[in-house]
């Protein structure tokens, strides 16, 4: 294992290396291998992008530890998305991160030209770096390609395989060597910019802030970066106005600087590739091409896609069920144990219903989370996930969503909590948030008991012909949620979650056999994160909600049968009082205080509505198939003797449950994933407003039509 804590303290301060490269070049696999899967996950200051840092385990403990940062994948340093800008800051260091001691740049050997484009701009910055030439073994590359590249570039190049871990020892030694040599690197490789562009760069260099400047080359590289990147409406912060105006001045002269930069760099890269004898990875392309002929086929491709998605959905919906049932059984057994062991009283009830129930509310999500990430891991690792995005992009993008949002959206039909965790597969934060905002509209499995109860109680079977109304109603609720979710995505993507349009850039990586080990690690990481961060919020909320429907305790202590703890009638609890206070608000939706109290209780989880209603009506039975509860709901009357639950009320209630964000766990997970209360607040507000408006409409129109 690692050095003891005492030895760590005596060790010199760690040096920082930043791992970076294009998206999908196997960066994360390398990171995991290098840091032994013990990443510390934090956040970048001021933004809510995850920053993964690990420690490289060097052979022998003579060296100071090397801290490795997994920078967001990027195609260049000029990018505009939040994540890609952070990569620039990691490399250049003006955002308080400090300059890194070295970079580890990952290149995909099968896509050298494009990967070298990023490397070129890093070399120009004169940051000490080593190159990991990843997947060279499967790209038909000549075995001496690393050596040739290293010679032509003038920096160390090590052939690696992020899947097997091959070449990593050499990579670490190369990194240590670079860190220990004090001199600034002088790469052999140079891009020949024309003299006008160089003069422009020098003019811009004068306007660079002093702490950005360095060697002549570094200063010029940053000037070129500014020329090729800054524009009046970009999102870069901490760029001095003087620099901006100088860039604007030079650009106003009308030359096509962006094109000149790209042409000069690609011209140099092309020469380099000829020099090192690079050739396209034919074997890899051909093998993948053969598979894609089926998997992307208009007919067979869709068939495989639908089947795959059915398996994923079925797993979440049905396979997770025994595990969920087992967890619920254990939780109620523990609750029974607590009840038996402790004397009656507030403490017993708090422990049993609040705390044990709360822990149950957290771990009950684990089966679905683990299963979903098992599938996501296998789909990503095999390369099929990118094909899913490719196949459905046409549909998803008309809604402003990324093709990769499909799997989270689908998972939302089982449960929003794992689905929101699954938005991690989206690269851009904007896409992630937009997906998180609409996933909770999908008809999750917790809504089903509520729908079943209402449908069974209000739309009785006998009223049905050959096509039972109940089935149609349920189908209608599903369609409603899909249509609303898609509309919400369309609207939110143009209002609250606006983003710049970037060209969709899908890479279809070569197929590879999916590996179980990294998938299991990811499942473990995600599950632990959920338990740690969202779990605490869910637990606290459960206890609070329990208190709301429990207190105040009834004051009458002496009853004929003795001084037993008296169950407060639900209507006298704070929750019940709140329900009563809300009655005027929900009356236009057709609800009374009892339903309002049920809705409050359902905040713990939607299906709790059923058991809360059983409490409200003081009937036995707490599941949707309970006959007494159905009968009680059916027989509930208004003051004028008409049924309390008319079809209009029933529909209104179902629509309310379809749209309202009646789920504290969803909010807790959105808070965890966005690292802010803003997005859960937005989610709750828009969904509740939508639910209120829709229910209002349904009830008022329904009543006017005489239902």
């Amino acid at each position, binding site marked *: 294992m690692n050095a003891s804590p005492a030895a760590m303290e005596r060790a010199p301060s760690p040096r920082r290396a930043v791992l970076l490269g294009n998206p999908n070049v196997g960066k994360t696999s390398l990171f995991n291998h290098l840091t032994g899967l013990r990443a510390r996950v934090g956040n970048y200051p001021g933004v809510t992008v995850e920053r993964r840092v690990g420690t490289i385990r060097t052979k022998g403990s003579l060296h100071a530890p090397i801290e490795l940062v997994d920078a967001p994948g990027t195609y260049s340093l000029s990018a505009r998305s939040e994540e890609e800008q952070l990569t620039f800051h990691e490399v250049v260091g003006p955002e308080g991160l400090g300059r890194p001691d070295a970079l580890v740049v990952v290149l995909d050997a099968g896509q050298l030209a*494009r990967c070298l484009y990023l490397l070129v701009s890093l070399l120009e910055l004169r940051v000490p770096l080593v190159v990991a030439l990843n997947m060279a073994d499967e790209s038909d590359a000549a075995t001496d390609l690393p050596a040739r590249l290293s010679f032509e570039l003038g920096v160390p190049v090590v052939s690696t395989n992020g899947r097997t871990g091959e070449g990593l020892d050499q990579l670490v030694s190369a990194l240590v060597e670079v860190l220990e040599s004090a001199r600034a690197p002088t790469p052999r490789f140079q891009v020949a910019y024309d003299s006008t562009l160089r003069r422009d760069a020098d003019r811009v260099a004068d306007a660079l802030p002093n702490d950005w400047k360095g060697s002549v080359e570094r200063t010029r590289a940053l000037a070129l970066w500014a020329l090729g990147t800054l524009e009046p409406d970009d999102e870069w912060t901490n760029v001095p106005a003087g620099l901006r105006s100088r860039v604007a001045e030079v650009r106003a002269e009308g030359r096509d600087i962006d094109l000149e930069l790209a042409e000069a760099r690609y011209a140099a890269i092309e020469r380099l590739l000829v020099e090192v004898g690079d050739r*396209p990875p034919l074997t890899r392309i051909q093998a993948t091409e053969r598979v894609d002929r089926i998997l992307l086929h208009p007919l067979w491709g869709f068939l495989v896609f639908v089947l795959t998605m059915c398996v994923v959905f079925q797993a979440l919906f049905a396979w997770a069920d025994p595990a969920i049932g087992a967890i619920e059984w254990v939780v109620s057994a523990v609750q029974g144990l607590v009840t038996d062991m402790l004397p009656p009283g507030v403490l017993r009830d708090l422990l049993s219903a609040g705390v044990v129930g709360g822990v149950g509310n957290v771990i009950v999500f684990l089966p679905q989370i683990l299963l979903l990430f098992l599938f996501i891991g296998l789909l990503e690792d095999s390369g099929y996930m990118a094909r899913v995005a490719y196949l459905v992009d046409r549909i998803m*993008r008309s809604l402003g969503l990324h093709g990769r949002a499909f799997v989270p959206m689908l998972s939302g039909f089982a449960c929003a909590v794992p689905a929101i965790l699954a938005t991690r597969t989206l690269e851009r934060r904007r896409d992630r948030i937009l997906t998180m905002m609409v996933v909770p509209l999908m008809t999750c499995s917790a809504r089903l008991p509520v729908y079943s109860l209402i449908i069974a109680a209000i739309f009785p079977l006998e009223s049905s012909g050959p096509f039972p109304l109940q089935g149609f109603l349920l189908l209608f609720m599903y369609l409603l949620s899909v249509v609303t979710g898609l509309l919400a995505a369309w609207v939110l993507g143009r209002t609250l979650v606006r983003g710049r349009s970037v060209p969709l850039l899908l890479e279809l990586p070569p197929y590879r056999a999916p590996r179980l080990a990294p998938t299991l690690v990811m499942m473990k990481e995600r599950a632990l994160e959920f338990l740690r961060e969202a779990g605490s919020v869910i637990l606290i909320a459960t206890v609070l909600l329990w208190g709301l429907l429990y207190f105040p305790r009834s004051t009458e202590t002496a009853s004929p049968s003795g001084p037993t703890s008296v169950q407060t009638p639900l209507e006298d609890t704070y929750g019940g009082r709140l329900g009563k206070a809300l009655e005027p608000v929900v009356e236009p939706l057709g609800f009374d205080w009892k339903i309002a109290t049920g809705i409050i209780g359902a905040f713990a989880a939607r299906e709790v509505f059923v058991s809360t209603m059983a409490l409200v009506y003081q009937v036995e039975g707490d599941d949707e198939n309970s006959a007494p509860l159905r009968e009680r709901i059916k027989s509930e009357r208004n003051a004028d003797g008409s049924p309390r639950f008319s079809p209009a009320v029933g529909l209104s209630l179902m629509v309310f449950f379809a749209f309202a964000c009646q789920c504290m766990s969803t909010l807790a997970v959105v808070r965890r994933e966005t690292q802010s209360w803003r997005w859960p607040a937005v989610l709750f507000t828009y969904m509740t407003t939508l639910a209120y408006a829709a229910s209002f409409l349904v009830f008022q129109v329904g009543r006017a039509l005489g239902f």
Partner: protein
Amino acid sequence: MTLGELPIGGSAIVDRVEGARAFRRRLLELGLIPGTKVEVLRVAPLGDPIELLVRGYRLSLRREDAALVSLREGAA
């Protein structure tokens, strides 16, 4: 002709790249610069996006984005 109109299996040379600056820069950075050979490998079942072979790698672009790349005939 634009890249959006190139038939499956067809190949041509990039002539000009247009579009808003950030957008165009991204295409240029990906190597879609004038003089580059592009080939359309296939079109997704729903007609979009299209899959290209550029500089030895496979890249998928939406048609509307591909329409910003104008082409000329010939070999690189």
